[in-house]
């Protein structure tokens, strides 16, 4: 039962998948000869090695039943989303709103946090980040912008 979703089985499948991906694209780039290696020579080699490791993992997975440990889906979704929103918001609304939004959104990845506390944290952190990067390191960071 568990065998199908054991860590090694998944890792094996992923390795083989990436290995094939490297080989297919590598062949496209042109393998060349060993003396004059094409752009695809190295990727194909890597893909083949990764594929072999994947097979070995699958072979080993026949016996191991180590399941993937559980994790907090909430954090896994929210944290990357917070970073993504910073990238999307920064050029459109400026650093102040984008930064504050990122801090608050990231903060609610932990259930125990409350929005008012996060707003205070955001105020402090956004200000100090702006001082550090914009004033200290002279990175151009528009405080507020409106360009949708």
């Amino acid at each position, binding site marked *: 039962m568990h065998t199908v979703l054991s*860590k*090694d089985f998944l*890792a094996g499948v*992923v*390795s083989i998948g990436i290995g094939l991906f*490297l080989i297919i*694209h590598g062949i496209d*780039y*042109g393998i060349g000869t*060993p*003396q*004059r*290696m*094409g*752009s695809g020579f*190295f*990727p194909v080699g*890597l893909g083949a090695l*990764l594929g072999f*490791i*994947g097979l*070995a993992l699958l072979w080993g997975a026949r*016996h*191991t*039943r180590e399941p993937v*440990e559980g*994790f*907090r889906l909430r*954090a*896994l979704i929210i*944290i*990357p*989303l*917070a*970073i*993504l929103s*910073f*990238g*999307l918001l*920064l*050029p459109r609304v400026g*650093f102040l709103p984008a930064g504050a939004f*990122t*801090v608050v959104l*990231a*903060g609610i990845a*932990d*259930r*125990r*946090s409350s929005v008012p506390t*996060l707003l205070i*944290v*955001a105020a402090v*952190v*956004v200000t100090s*980040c702006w001082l550090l*990067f914009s004033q200290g390191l002279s*990175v*151009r*960071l528009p405080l507020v912008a409106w360009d949708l």
Partner: protein
Amino acid sequence: MDVLANIQLGLLTAATLENLAYCFVGVTVGMIVGVLPGIGHLAAISLLMPLTFHVPATASLVLLAGIYYGAQYGGSIASILLNLPGTASSAVACLDGYPMAQKGRAGAALMITTIASFFGSCLSIVVLILMAPPLAQLALAFHSADYFSMMVLGLVAAGSISQGKPLMGLASVILGLAIGLVGIDVNTGSMRFTFGTPELFEGVSIIVIAMALFGVVEVISSIGRTGEGAKVHDVSFRSLMPTRNELSRSWWPMLRGSGIGVGVGVLPGTGGGSMASFMAYAVEKRVSRTPEEFGKGSIAGVSAPEAANNSAAQSAFIPTLTLGIPGDAIMALMLGALLIHGIQPGPRVVTESPELFWGLVVSFLIGNFFLLILNIPLIRVWVRILQIPYKVLFPSIILLIAVGVYSVNRSTFDVMLVAGLAFVGFLMIRIGFEAAPLLLGYILGPLLEENMRRALLVSRGDFMIFLERPISAVFLFFALAMLAWVVFSSLRTPKLNETSSAESG
């Protein structure tokens, strides 16, 4: 005489006001981040990598290195007072440090830790000063085939001595090598794995990878796990003084620990302190006349691993700077900083940028001295920092990551790439892939391909060149031996699992 001249040059470089300031900032920040629970030194260095774009090459290495060994010091504080290791290497400090704190000897444990760290670092720096120039000289004679094989050995070692399964470590190395391919192939001018995205033409930035895999992934997995409001043992100034007995029982363990640290630190794939400190602890327990005290607050169990940990942290720079082969992910980040500044890592660093090399080495000494004076009087401040709740900390870290990545190239694409890589990376780490070997592969990938290409060009496509050159053959032999061991042990473990599950079932 040469040694003296080198040290003089180093002093001249390191003692400029600018570099002194960066060294001070580095060790202080490192110390703070090391103390903070939930942020390891890898995350700390990744977090602060963008800063290095804005300062000169020497200063940036001084800064990063300062953060590194500063965090080593800081990590032991959290371990001793809270039983919360920030990193694998400071986990050993919990074993006897925390029991000492429970017995009311937290102050003494911290003091011994500080002394042992300083002692271990200094011994290692001396070895670094003596060993680096001849090693670099030797490596200058290397042919591209030798380089290729040396890197293969380094990568195989990094993959197989990883924390998890060796097979997964190797898969991670190869994945890293593949990520290193993204961008323009300098030899043929064609694009690889860019899929028409102009932002990828110059490859995936090391900052993006480090931030995603060490910064964000660590935050995601720590959320909700790190306890809050932990009780911290109060440390009074008076209790810092170790008794005469405690001191005298620490000297030999410190010396043995430092020796082990130096030895382990220079080996490829083992850099960083964790293996060194575990080994030092095991050795100390073996040679001790009172092994039953270990785990219950033995002073030797604190001083030996701590000395080993720090001396390994310094000696890991030997192969990194002289051969261009990083022993662990942190050293890979250091090499990344060099590359950012257009310095090709390798034996030429010592001869062609002597002020950088010797300046860095002397800054180690100065930085360790800073730490010695920072650590003790400010112990109360560190204890206070320990109490910052993680739920306040991590949103701040996330913003720092986002702005930091953006600041490097003013690229929102990079920011979004971090988000994507962190998501995928987290899932892949869950199924057994590892971030550290991946980073090593990523750093060495382009060099590996380049040297292979050159070697094969010279030999007219004959792969035998890797075996005909004796240096290369020796490296490959060791790599092969290591692989054989990996295969052997991976064939054995499933059976062990089977018997253990049979026993429990």
